[in-house]
Every structure is written in C-alpha cells, then in structure tokens.
C-alpha cells in the first residue's frame, strides 16, 4: 500500500530576482516499510525533494505546485502545528554531517530526550532514561550509558551518525528520510551505517528513503532506485533490474563509473563527461542530451516518464539499446 505519495512536485528557488526551478514535476510513491534510494549528482533536486516532503525548505525555496500526501492526507495543506506532529513523529529526517546536525552544546541524551518529550512523553525520569539507552542500543552504540552523557564532538564520525539516527528514531517514525547520511564518513563506516538503516527498517517496519550520490551504497539496500537528473526523475526501477540493465543512459553511465571487483584491474574508471546543467539555463529537450552518447535529433523534445514493466523511464531511446 502506498504510504507516501509525491505527485508533480515543482520546487523553485528565488535567485537574483528570478524563480529557478530545481525540482520539475517529480512523482513517486513509497510503500509502507519499503526502502527506496534516490540517486543523482548534487543539484539534481534529490535533497530539495526530501526537504519539501517535511516542509523544511529554506526560505528562498517555495513549492510551486504538486502534492505530497501521507496515508492519504495532504501534507502541503496542513497548518504548521499539525506538520510539527508529523515531523519526527511520522516522518523523520537524518542529515549529512552529524557533527553539524547535532547541537554541539547539548549531550546526546538531552537531544534524544527533547524528541521523546515531544512525541512520546514518558512518565518517569527513569523511563525516559531507559528509552534513551534502548535507542542507543538499537543504533548499535556500545557503552550507551557513557555515550549518552557525551557531547557530539566527543564521539567519532560513525558514532555521531548513529547518535543522530537515534534522535530520529526517538519519535518512532514510519518513514525515515536519510539525506546523504554516509557522505562524511569513511568507506567501512559507510557500509555499517547503511547496514544499520536496513536492519532498522526490517525490525521496525519503517520505510526508508536513502538519498545519495553513490550508487555503490545502494545495491544491497534498496528495493527500488529512483534516479534523478536536473530536477526530474529519469528512471525509477526495482533495484535488481536497474543494476542488471539500466534503461536510461544516465543510469547506465552512473553504473559504469562504479569500481567493480571482478572487472579488469588497471582500467581507468569512466566518468560522465561535462557537468549537470545550470537549473537557471536548462537546455531545451532532454536535459541529459548534451552529455549523452546516444543523443539524436529526437532528444530536442523533452522525453516523458513512461512506464515499461516494473519501471518508469524518461528517455526516447529506452528499450532500444
């Protein structure tokens, strides 16, 4: 059953007196308890889409059109008060850099308890403390009693990210949106955090949207992968299908630029030539065409997202390769 439904979302940023579209008609659904990875380069609109879902966009951004609904109720029309119940309580977010995302002046316990007090008030001091310990164990932090008393700067990078996830879990959300939660971490710790998110999703039946620019961390995690480019979804496919046979040239290029364990060893990793377009000056037609090896005259018109089997893809050449 679809829990989160985003349709035709358009988000614009005010920049130098102009409105620059950063998210241009994004639609996707998230089923209860499922895991979706949203992949794309920086500037592709993936983080902005996530912030729009929780209505935490910066003041310069605004939602022009579209709708976002959670279990059938429209989030964009909700008064701010009701939105606060949803934030952290039903849809929680984890941000990229846990060092800046946690408040430097308060202990981990104080920060977890603030969320508990808000969404799940406990009767006694002891019960609150026990719940904090429980959350710390759930995110795999050893010696939780001591770590609860620590300040963010006293923890290692991976530990901080776990603690940040613990503050997100405190409201017992149904949907967790993790915005590049592993970017600031080294590779082994990245894998641990992704494993943790998968385990939490399984144990709690919690749906997870993992936003990342790294397809590598996605493979074992996601049920489905949404690939974004220049503010649009270019491909949305079951993870195994996408990794097996990407339908969009951009997805294929992303996959090609991953290092592989069984490929030739000294091979130079291919990269995608050129740079993503400036959202203020998008090319006419397909936004990826200028960087695409398969671009033809047809690509001067913007491809629509069409459903092919279990996937959706926006490319004139999809299925012809």
């Amino acid at each position, binding site marked *: 059953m679809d829990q989160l439904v985003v349709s035709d979302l358009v988000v614009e940023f005010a920049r130098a007196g102009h409105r620059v579209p950063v998210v241009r008609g994004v639609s996707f659904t998230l089923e209860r308890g499922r895991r979706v990875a949203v992949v794309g380069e920086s500037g592709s609109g993936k983080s902005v889409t996530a912030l729009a879902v*929780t209505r*935490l966009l910066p003041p310069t951004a605004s939602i022009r059109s579209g709708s976002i609904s959670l279990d059938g109720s429209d989030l964009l029309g909700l008064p701010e*008060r009701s939105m*606060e*119940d*949803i*934030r*952290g*309580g039903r849809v*929680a*977010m984890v*941000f990229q*850099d846990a060092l*800046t*995302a*946690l*408040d*430097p*002046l*308060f202990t981990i316990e104080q920060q977890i308890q*603030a*969320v508990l007090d*808000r*969404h799940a008030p406990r009767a006694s001091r002891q019960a609150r403390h026990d719940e904090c310990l429980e959350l710390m164990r759930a995110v795999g932090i050893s010696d939780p009693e001591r770590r609860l008393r620590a*300040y963010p*700067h*006293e923890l290692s990078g991976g530990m901080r990210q776990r603690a*940040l996830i613990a*503050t*997100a879990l*405190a*409201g017992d959300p149904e949907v967790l949106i993790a915005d590049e939660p592993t970017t600031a971490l080294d590779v082994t710790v990245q894998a641990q955090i992704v494993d943790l998110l998968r385990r939490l999703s399984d144990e709690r039946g919690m749906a997870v949207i993992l936003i990342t620019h790294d397809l590598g961390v996605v493979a074992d995690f996601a049920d489905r992968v949404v690939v974004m480019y220049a503010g649009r979804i270019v491909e949305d496919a079951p993870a195994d299908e996408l990794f097996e046979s990407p339908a969009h040239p951009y997805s294929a290029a992303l996959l090609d630029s991953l290092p592989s364990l069984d490929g030739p060893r000294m091979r130079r990793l291919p990269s995608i030539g050129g740079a993503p377009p400036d959202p203020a000056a998008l090319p006419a037609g397909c936004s990826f065409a200028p960087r695409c090896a398969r671009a033809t005259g047809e690509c001067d018109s913007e491809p629509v997202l069409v459903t092919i089997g279990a996937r959706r893809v926006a490319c004139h050449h999809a299925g012809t390769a």
Partner: protein
Amino acid sequence: MSANGTIARRVGRTGVVLLVVYAITFVCVRLTPGNPFAARAPRALSPDQQARLERQFGLDDPWPVQFVRYLFRALSGDFGVSYAHQGEDVVDVIVARAWPTMSLVGAALLVGLVVGVPLGVAAALRNDSWFDHLLSGVSTLGVAIPVFVATPVLVIVLSVYAGWLPAQGWDGLISTTAIIPIVVLALEPIAVTARFTRASMIEVLRSDHHRTARARGLARRTVVFRFALRNGLVPVTTITGLQVAGLLGSVVLVESAYNVPGLGKEFLAAITARDYPVVMAATLIFAAVIVVANLLVDVAYARLDPRIRSA
C-alpha cells in the same frame, strides 16, 4: 593542562598585566605637565617651598627610585596618602567611593543583558521585519550618542522640564538618583548586546542542528529557547567582557556629569589635581576589575560550550 596549572598561569598573567598598567600609569602621571602643589596653592609657590614639598612626599628622588618604592609599598597594601584629600589614606579614599561606581557599572551591564538579549532574539526571529530595521537604527544611535551628551539631555528632559528625577547626586543604587546614570551607561551595552545577539541568533537559526531540531517536530519556541538561545549566547559573553572596559571609561564621565561621589568622579578630580597616588590606585582598581571580568567571561564561556571545557 591541568586545572591547577591553568589557574596558576592565569594568576601569573594577571600579575604581569597589573604591573604593566602600574608602570605605564606611573610614567604618564609624571609626564603630565604641572605638579600636585601648584594647582592647590592660593598663590604661586616659591621654588624653595616647592622643593620642600617635593622632598616631603619623596618626589625629588629619581623616577626609578620612586617607582620601586611605590611598587613595594603598594604590594604591602600601602598606596600612600592623597595629596588632594589632605593626609587621607589612598585606600580609604578609594574604598569610600568604590561602591557607587561598581554598582553603577554592574547595574548597567545587567540592564544591557536583560534588555539587549531579548531585543536581539526578537529581531533575529523577525529578521528583515520593520522591528528588525527599527532596532538596528535605534541601536546605532545607542552606540553613537556619547554619555557626556546623553547625561545632560536626560537631565534637562527628565529633571529640569519634567521634574520626575533628581538632576544630580547619589542616594544609593536603589534610589531615583541611580536611574539617569544607569540608563545612560546601559545605552551602549543594550545596543551592542542586541546587535550581537541578533547576529549570532540568525546564524544559529540557519544552522544544521537547528534544522535537525525542527525536523524532529520540536516547536519553534521550544527549539529557540531550549537549544538555540544557548548557542546564540556564546559570542555574546565575549562582548559582555569587553563592555566592562567601555563602562569603566563611561562611568568616569557620567559620575562627573551627574555628580556621583564615586571612583570615576574622584579619578577625574585626581588627574586634574595631579593627585598621583590616587590616580595610580584608581587605575589599578579599574585594571583589576577588567581582568576579573574577563576571567568571569572565560568561566561563563566554558560553562556554555563543552568544546571549550575539553579543549
């Protein structure tokens, strides 16, 4: 670095600071033209009388000799006798006048924080609103108006025309006489505190951790008062330490203008009268207050920010 080591180092540094202040004051006072006796004598002193007085107060010795003698006596708590208050011990002169000055400075500082912080927070929460712009305009005035202008203006308006407040004098901190001096002294601390609070709160409200707190569904009010305010106050503490130095400068003028029998007024009078021992002792007291204020700021800083504590 152990806590004891840190404290020992700080006390050592404080001693050096006070010694340097003492030395500079000693030289400045003696470089000032005029002498303690000519100013007070009803008619010109003969060279003979002048020399006798100088000998009597030890002013005929070479400067280094005078300096060392002063220093050692001061270390044992003997700051000499005032020239202007005939035969009165300098310590007595200072102690009798310290209270009005310290209470004025303390009250102005407190008013600065109590009024300035909420104004700054309100402006940050309504960033770019009419209130924000108004506050920024008014706070520029607060910094720009010198106390020697503000004092007579308030006296003329509130005392001479309105007749609500006394025009001068001192009946203690809890009296109507304290209002004008405190208001005048607090103008700059209010303005500066409000500006710094506003700037640092705006930064905090844009921070990642503020966004995290909002993403947890915490109401804006909760986030601002439970978390953001403490973040915002860290830079404000630093400014508060600096305010003390400014206030000690202003209080000299305000006391003189409002005729408050405090250290500030005495300080100015002592300079005019070339009352060397009083000038020296008062300067030391002022310097000591600034040093102590900065020490308190450091303590407050460490209490607010755990990263300072562990550094």
